[in-house]
């Protein structure tokens, strides 16, 4: 008998938990909750953003003269690959 009560309470508890989870999932979105959801899409690290690209050629040439390093120029058509689809 005790095991039957335990089993019943477990089943009831399971469904109660399920309803609670569903209720949480179906809670109306707020600007804050939606922002948090979108932010989960943003990776912590983007490997292609680890190069310190300078968008100003004049500034790059100035640094080249000062640091005696060559300029590696990446010339691309369409969007800026640093922040946009390309």
């Amino acid at each position, binding site marked *: 008998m005790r095991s039957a009560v335990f089993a019943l309470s477990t089943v009831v508890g399971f469904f109660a938990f399920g309803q609670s989870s569903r209720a949480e999932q179906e809670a109306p979105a707020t600007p804050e909750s939606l922002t948090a959801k979108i932010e989960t899409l943003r990776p912590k690290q983007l490997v*292609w953003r680890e190069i310190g690209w300078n968008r100003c050629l004049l500034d790059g040439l100035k640094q080249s003269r000062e640091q005696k390093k060559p300029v*590696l120029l990446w010339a691309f058509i369409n969007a800026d690959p640093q*922040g946009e689809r390309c």
Partner: protein
Amino acid sequence: MFAGAAREAVFSNPTVIRRLNAEFIPVSVSAARMHTPPQDIEGRLLQAAGRVAPAPQGIAVLNSDGQPLAWTLMFDSDSAVLDFLDYAKRRFREYGDRSRPFESERFQRFPSMREPDAAYTGGLRAPASHPQGEACPGRPQHPKGTLRVQVIGRALDDRGQPGADTLHQSQYVQDQFEIPVPMQRLIAAALSGAEFGPIRVPDGFARMLVFHAFLGQIDVRPLENPNGGHSKIAVYEFWAQRTSGKDGKSVLRLDGTSHLVTDAAPQGEMQHFRHSVKLTWEGFLELDGNRITRLILSGEGTERLTWNAPQPPTGTLSEVAFLPAGRSINFDGKVRYGLIGKPTGSD
């Protein structure tokens, strides 16, 4: 495709990243500035460098005067990328300034596909900076109040969680667009009736919201496909309803759906692709008078994308050897997109 493929295959290589940051001055520019009438000294330098480029876009090594020591569009292999960096440093040691004459060495693919050298005819000296009060065209300025919207899109795994691949645009994209102040005024006026009940969002604004929500490179954009792809289905609809607000400020809830289908058969340089994006949207638009002060929008659904890149050259395996063609894509799965917009100057 070149820029996306170069970003994925060349500039995501850890050794290349480390060497570029340590041994070079990395500069990125829009190739359009090399091929349009220059507005300033920087534009003239870029145009002179572009005159000896073997292709409309590419990767160059410049000396400190902005003269191209070498250009290439592709590389024979991953190791050839590192060889190119060594070669670039040697060229710079020899011709780092204008004390010795030289010609630009040019490659379609480094080092095996070389083109005739070309004489640089720029004869320009680069000033240290742009004239005082003039912004660099490479760093565009936006008028105060412009809403800058960042778009993030990601493939979801079987559990509905963001996938692990953030390198390839077939799995992860980020993009951005702006809503100028005059357009914000039009949108605010069109939505002024939203306090009395749901009203349909103007088509032009709805189109902006769905325009950037797709995986893959620019070539597979479902709307206004840049390569002439045919739009088979282009249905999008958003509704707005005021949820709260006072003193001229209001928060509108946005709900919408979108279904975009585009395809293209091989034609000229255009590759075959088929793209379908079907999303359900929810979000918020915050207004202060006739200005948009915040946009938050999330779209979730399914996406199918096939892009058949041309076969790589015989015996070549590395993506760096066929950058303009890109890599083939075959994606069919769940996706989520997020748009977050804030006025410039609010970060």
